[in-house]
C-alpha cells in the first residue's frame, strides 16, 4: 500500500461520513412529505404527476397493496423495456442502424432472450449486461428504456427501504405509506436534482452528450479506430447514484467518456454510497434515535474498510509469479507498481481497488477496472461482498433493507441470549419476521449455488436452441478454478442485483440469459416481498418500552453482533463454493500456477 493510496481511501470514507447526515435528513423530510427548499420548483410537477396518474397523495396502503403496486409497476417496466428493445429498429435515434438490415457487421442481434434478460436486468436495478451496449443498443433504447429504468428501479428500491423504516417507526398502524407517492417523491426531489448537477459536472470533466454516430480516428500506429459517441453524460449520474451500474459503453466506467478523470472517478464512487449512507441516518431520524442509524452505518463502514483493505494490498502486492520473473512491480515515484493488469493508468491501483469494493458493497456493478484480472484475494472481496447480499451501504434502498433483514436475524439470536423475546427498536421480532428474513437469505443462496451448479455440469446437444453444443461451462474464457469463479460471480452478481461481471464469460446465450434472468428476479423480489411483509407486520405491533433488560442495539457490541452475523452466515453458505474458486486459486498462485 502507498501513502497516497491510503489517503485516497481515507478521504473517500471521510466524505461519505460527512454527507450521510445532510443527505439522510433531506430524505427524511422528502418522505415525510415535509417542505424542502426544492418544493417551490418541483412541487407543481409532483402534483401534476399525481393528477395525471390519479394518485391520491394522502391515501395510505397496507403492505400487500404496497407490494402489489410495486409488482405492477415492475411488470409494466419490464414490458416497456422489452418492447422498445425489440422494436428499436423501427424507432428513432439509431445512428448505427441496430436491429435493421443496415446494421454493421459487428452488431449484436437483439434476440428475444437477450431482450428479456436486459429488461429484467434493468427493471431489477441489476444492470447485468449480457451484451455490449455499443454494438447492440440504439440511443433511443439507451435513453427511453434503460435510463428511465435506472431512475425507476432505484426509486422502487428506496421506496421499499422507506416502507420498512416506517414499519419500525410506526406502531399499531395498518399502513406503511403509499408506493406511488414514495416513488414519485424519490424521483423528483432526490434522484433528479442530484443527477442534473452531477451530469453537468461530468460534462465539465470531459464526458460527452450528443446524438452523433461514431467517428473514425487514426491512431499513432496508423490503425483505424472507431470512437463511439452518444448521449452518455446524462446516464452517467443516475448509473452511479441509482447504483444501477449499466454502462453506456461496454468498458463501463473504465471508458474515458464515461469516467474521464480521477476526480470524476471519485465523484462516481461518492454518488454510489451517498443515498445508501443517507438512508442509515434517515432510519435513525425516523425511529427517533439517530444512534440506531449510526450503529448500522458503523457496521457497514467497518465491513467496507475491511474489504477495501484486503483488496487494495492484494492488488498493490501484485502477482508473485510476475514478481518472481524479475519484473519490478513495486511502487516507485514513476510507476504505480502492483497488479496493473486490467486497470486504467489514470486511476491506479488504489482507486481501482476502492472502486471494485464500493461497486460491490453497493449493488452498483459499474466497473472501472476488470475484476477478472484482479489477484485471487483481490477478486474474492467483490465476490464475497455480493454474496453477503450487498449490505455494505448497498444498492439504493436494497442495501438498507437487506441489511435490516440480517439485523433481524442478529437481533433474534442476540435477543434470546439476553433472556427476552427479541426486540429491535421497540418491536418484537417474532416468527413472522424471522421467517421472512430467512426466506430472503435462502432464496438468494439457492439461485446462486443452484444455477452455478447447473451451469458447471450442463451439456447441450448440437444445433440446440439454448446454448452452443457441449458444456455450458465452455462459455467461460478461463478454465478450472478461475473459470469456476467466473460462473459463480455471474450468478452471484445477478441474484445480488449487482450487475458487475467478472468478465470472461459469454453470457449472451439463451441458457445464460434465461437463468440469469430468473436469478435476478429471485434476488430482487424474494428480498422485496419479505421486506415489505416485515414492514407490514412491524407497523401493526405495539411499541415496547426500552429497559435495561432490552438488548442494546446501539454501540460497539451490537455492531460486532451484526457484522458477525453477516460474515458468518455469508461465509458458511458460500465457503465450499469459494474454496473451489478464488481460495484455491490463491493457493495455486502462491505455488506458482497460472491459468
Amino acid at each position, binding site marked *: 500500500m502507498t501513502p497516497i493510496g491510503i489517503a485516497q481511501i481515507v478521504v473517500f470514507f471521510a466524505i461519505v461520513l460527512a454527507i450521510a447526515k445532510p443527505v439522510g435528513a433531506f430524505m427524511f423530510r422528502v418522505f415525510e412529505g415535509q417542505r424542502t427548499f426544492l418544493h417551490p420548483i418541483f412541487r407543481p410537477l409532483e402534483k401534476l404527476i399525481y393528477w395525471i396518474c390519479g394518485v391520491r397523495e394522502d391515501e395510505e396502503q397496507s403492505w400487500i397493496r404496497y407490494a402489489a403496486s410495486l409488482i405492477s409497476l415492475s411488470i409494466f417496466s419490464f414490458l416497456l423495456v422489452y418492447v422498445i428493445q425489440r422494436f428499436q429498429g423501427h424507432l428513432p435515434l439509431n445512428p448505427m442502424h441496430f436491429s435493421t438490415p443496415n446494421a454493421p457487421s459487428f452488431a449484436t442481434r437483439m434476440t428475444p432472450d437477450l431482450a428479456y434478460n436486459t429488461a429484467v436486468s434493468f427493471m431489477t436495478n441489476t444492470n447485468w449486461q449480457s451484451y455490449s451496449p455499443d454494438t447492440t443498443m440504439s440511443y433511443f433504447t439507451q435513453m427511453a428504456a434503460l435510463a428511465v429504468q435506472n431512475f425507476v428501479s432505484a426509486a422502487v428500491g428506496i421506496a421499499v427501504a422507506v416502507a420498512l423504516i416506517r414499519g419500525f417507526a410506526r*406502531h399499531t398502524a395498518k399502513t406503511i405509506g403509499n408506493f406511488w407517492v414514495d416513488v414519485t417523491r424519490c424521483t423528483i426531489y432526490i434522484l433528479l436534482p442530484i443527477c442534473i448537477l452531477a451530469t453537468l459536472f461530468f460534462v465539465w470533466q470531459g464526458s460527452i452528450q450528443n446524438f452523433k454516430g461514431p467517428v473514425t480516428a487514426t491512431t499513432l500506429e496508423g490503425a483505424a479506430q472507431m470512437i463511439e459517441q452518444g448521449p452518455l453524460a446524462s446516464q452517467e449520474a443516475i448509473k452511479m447514484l441509482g447504483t444501477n451500474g449499466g454502462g453506456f459503453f461496454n468498458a463501463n466506467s473504465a471508458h474515458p467518456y464515461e469516467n474521464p478523470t480521477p476526480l470524476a472517478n471519485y465523484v462516481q464512487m461518492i454518488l454510489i454510497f451517498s443515498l445508501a449512507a443517507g438512508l442509515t441516518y434517515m432510519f435513525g431520524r425516523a425511529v427517533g434515535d439517530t444512534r440506531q442509524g449510526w450503529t448500522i452505518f458503523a457496521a457497514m463502514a467497518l465491513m467496507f474498510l475491511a474489504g477495501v483493505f484486503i483488496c487494495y494490498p492484494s492488488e498493490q502486492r501484485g502477482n508473485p509469479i510476475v514478481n518472481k520473473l524479475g519484473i519490478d512491480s513495486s511502487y516507485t515515484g514513476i510507476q504505480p507498481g502492483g497488479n496493473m493488469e486490467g486497470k486504467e493508468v489514470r486511476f491506479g491501483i488504489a482507486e481501482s481497488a476502492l472502486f471494485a469494493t464500493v461497486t460491490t458493497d453497493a449493488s452498483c456493478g459499474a466497473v472501472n477496472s476488470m475484476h477478472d484480472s484482479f489477484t485471487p484475494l483481490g477478486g474474492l472481496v467483490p465476490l464475497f461482498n455480493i454474496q453477503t447480499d450487498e449490505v455494505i451501504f448497498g444498492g439504493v434502498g436494497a442495501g438498507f433493507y437487506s441489511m435490516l433483514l440480517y439485523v433481524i*436475524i442478529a437481533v433474534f*439470536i*442476540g*435477543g*434470546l*441470549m*439476553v*433472556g*427476552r*423475546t427479541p426486540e429491535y427498536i*421497540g418491536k418484537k421480532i*417474532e*416468527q413472522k419476521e*424471522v*421467517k421472512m428474513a*430467512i*426466506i430472503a437469505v*435462502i432464496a438468494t*443462496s*439457492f439461485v446462486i*449455488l*443452484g444455477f*452455478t*451448479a*447447473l451451469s*458447471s*455440469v450442463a451439456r447441450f446437444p448440437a444445433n440446440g436452441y439454448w446454448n452452443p453444443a457441449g*458444456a455450458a*461451462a465452455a462459455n467461460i474464457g478461463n478454465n*478450472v*478454478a478461475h473459470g*469456476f469463479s467466473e460462473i459463480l460471480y455471474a450468478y452471484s452478481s445477478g441474484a445480488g442485483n449487482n450487475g458487475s461481471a467478472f468478465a470472461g464469460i459469454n453470457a449472451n446465450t439463451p441458457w445464460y440469459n434465461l437463468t440469469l434472468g430468473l436469478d435476478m428476479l429471485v434476488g430482487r423480489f424474494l428480498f422485496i416481498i419479505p421486506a415489505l411483509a416485515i414492514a407490514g407486520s412491524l407497523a401493526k405491533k*405495539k*411499541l*415496547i*418500552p426500552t*429497559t*435495561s*433488560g*432490552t*438488548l*442494546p442495539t446501539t454501540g460497539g*457490541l451490537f455492531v*460486532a*453482533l451484526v457484522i458477525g452475523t453477516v460474515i*458468518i452466515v455469508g*461465509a*458458511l*453458505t*458460500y*465457503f*465450499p*463454493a469459494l*474454496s*473451489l474458486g478464488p481460495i*484455491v486459486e490463491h493457493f495455486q498462485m*502462491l*505455488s506458482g*500456477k497460472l491459468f
Partner: protein
Amino acid sequence: MATAMSSPPEKKPEPKSKQDEAALISKGVRARPLFDPEILRRAIKESFVKLNPRMVAKNPVMFVVEVGAALTTAFVIKDALAGVRGVFFGIQISVWLWFTVLFANFAEAMAEARGKAQADNLRKTKTDTIARKILPNGKFEMVPASKLRAGDVVFCEAGYLIPGDGEVIEGVASVDESVITGESAPLIRESGGDRSAVTGGTKVLSDHIKIRITSNPGETFLDRMITLVEGAVRQKTPNEIALNILIAGLTLIFLMAVATLPPYATFAIGAIGKGTAPTVAVLVSLLVCLIPTTIGGLLSAIGIAGMDRVMQHNVLAMSGKAVEASGDVNTLLLDKTGTITLGNRQAVEFIPVDGATESELADAAQLSSLADETPEGRSIVVLAKERYGLRGREVAEHEAQFIPFSAYTKMSGVNIDGRQLRKGATSAVAKFVADAGGKVPQSLTDVSDRISRNGGTPLAVADGPKVLGVIHLKDIVKGGMKERLASLRAMGIRSVMITGDNPLTAAAIAQEAGVDDFLAQATPKDKLEYIKNEQAQGRLVAMTGDGTNDAPALAQADVGVAMNTGTMAAKEAGNMVDLDSNPTKLIEVVAIGKQLLITRGSLTTFSIANDVAKYFAIIPAMFVSIYPELNHLNIMGLHSPQSAVLAAVIFNALIIVALVPLALRGVRYKPVSAGQMLLRNLLIYGLGGIIVPFPGIWAIDKMLVALHLA
C-alpha cells in the same frame, strides 16, 4: 406433621407412613440429581424408541441427520456387498451418524424422564376412593370418586381422602395437601372466603366438611398436574417456533451448499483431469456437521427442562408459553402484604395526645386488645408489656364486655368497669368520641397524618369521650426485599406494590422497600385497570393472587401466578399455580423464564459458530484429491482426509452429549443488564464456539490415529 394439629382424628384407615411416603416421593423427585440411574435407564431406552422416523420428523434438523444416516448406511451395505475396499470408514461414519440422532433423542428423553417419573408417582397416589355423596334428601350414598360430577355435594371427615376438586360449603377442617405441594404442614380449609378450595387426592386430617364438587373426573387438578409434569401435551412456545424456523432455514441453506458440491467437483475434475468426487458418506458428514445439530438436538430438551425447573420450584406452569412469557415481563405487580412486608403490622410506639400520659394510653390500648387475636392486636399487648411492664390482666375479675372489630364500625374495644375503651381508624374513633360528647383535638389528626406519611398505620385510642392517643402500627419490610427488587431493576423489570393502604402509607413503604411504583387503595378493578394500562403501553405484566376477586386480574396479566391456598377461581384464571403459596417466588419464575431463552440463544450461537472449524476439517479433506493446494486450509494438521471427516463427525455427535447437562440445567444466569449479559454470552458461546472445535477435532483425530481407526 399431622400430629401438630389439635383433635387428632379418631379413625386412621391408612397407616401414617403411607402419606408420608407420598410427600417424600413428590419432594424426592424434585430433589433428584441430574443423572439419576433410574432416569438414565429410562432415557436410554427412550432414545431408541424415538428413532422412529415419524417421531424424528417433528424435528427438521434431526430428521435430516436420520435420513443422512440411513442413506450412508445403505451405501455402505451396497459397497460391502460389492466388496469395495475401505468400507470400514463408511461403517464408522454411519455408526456415528446414528449416534448423533441417538444423542439428540437421549437429551430429549432425559428431560422428559424426570417429568414422567414424577407423573408416575402422582398417579400412584391417585387411588379411587369411595365418596359419601349427599343426596337431596340429606342421606348419604356411597359412590366411587370417579362417578362424581361437578355440582355433586359430598361429605368428608378426618382420615378420608377428598374425592375430587371442590369448594367447602360447610364446616372447617385441616387438610394435608402434601400430595400436591410436597409440604406436609396441614392447611385450614373452611367454607366461604378465600380458603374454601380443596383438591382431590388430598386428605382431611381433622373435623369434617361438606364439599361441592367443581370438576368432572379426568379434569381435576391432579389430572391436569399429571399431564403437565409429564409433558404429554407440550406445545411449542412462540420463540421456540421462531427459532425452529431459523434453524430449519439454515438447514435448507446448508443442504443446498452441500448438494451443489458434486457438480462443482465434477466441473473441476473435468477441467483438471484428476481427482475423485466426494463420496456420499463424506457429503452427508459435511451436511450433518454444518446443520445446527447441537441446538436442533437440544432444543426440545431445553424447553422441557425449563418447565421442569419451574416445577422444581414447586410452581406448576399451565404452559411453556407462560414460562417463556415470564422472561419477558416488564412489570411485576406485588401485593404488599405477605410479599413485600411480613404479613402483619406491628405496634412500635404509643403516642399520647391531649394531655394523656403514655402509660395511660398503653394501658387502655392493652386492655382494648386483650381479646384481639389478630397479629396487630397481639403486638399491642406485647409492646405494652415490654415497654411499660403492663402485664396481661385477668379480665375475668372484671365486668368486661369485648366489642369485636366490624367493617362497619372500623373499631374494636372493650367495655370494662364502666369505661368504654375503643381503638380503631382515626376517623371512626373521632366519630365515636364526638358522639360521646367529647372533643376531638387537632393533635390527633396531626399525629395520625404523620404516622401515615411515614408508612405506618395510626390506630386511635379513646376512653369514652376522651381521646388518649395513637398507636403506631408499622409494616415490616421483609429482609432482603430491597436487594431483590434492585436486581429486578437491573434486569429491566419494574416492581409495583399493590396495597389497600392510603397513598401516604403506601408511598412510605414503597420507598422503604424500594419498589418503582405503587397502587394505593387498590380495588380489584384498579388492579385490572393498571394491568390493562401497562399492557397498552406494550409492557408484559406478571402478578400473583389468591382471592376470587383477583381472578380477572390474574387472567388479564401475561403471567398470573395463583397461590395454591387460593380459590379455585384464582387457580383457573392464572397460568401458573404456586404450590408453596409464596408470592415472592414470582421473581424466581422470571429468572427461569429468562434462563430458558438465554440457553436457547446461547446454544444456537454456539452451534453455528462451531461450523467454522468443521469447514477447515472437511473442505480440504473433500477436495484434496482434486486440488492438493487446498491442504493449506488443513490448519489443524489433521492426519488424513478420512481421519479429518471422521473426527469432525465424532466431535459433532459428542458435543450434543457434552451439552446435555447444560441444556437441562440452563445457562448460568445472573441479574445484570442486557448489555453485560450479551457480552458475556457472545464471548463464551460465540467466540468460544468458534475456538473450541479446533482443539476438539484435533484431539479426536489424534486418538483415531492412535487407535488405528483411520
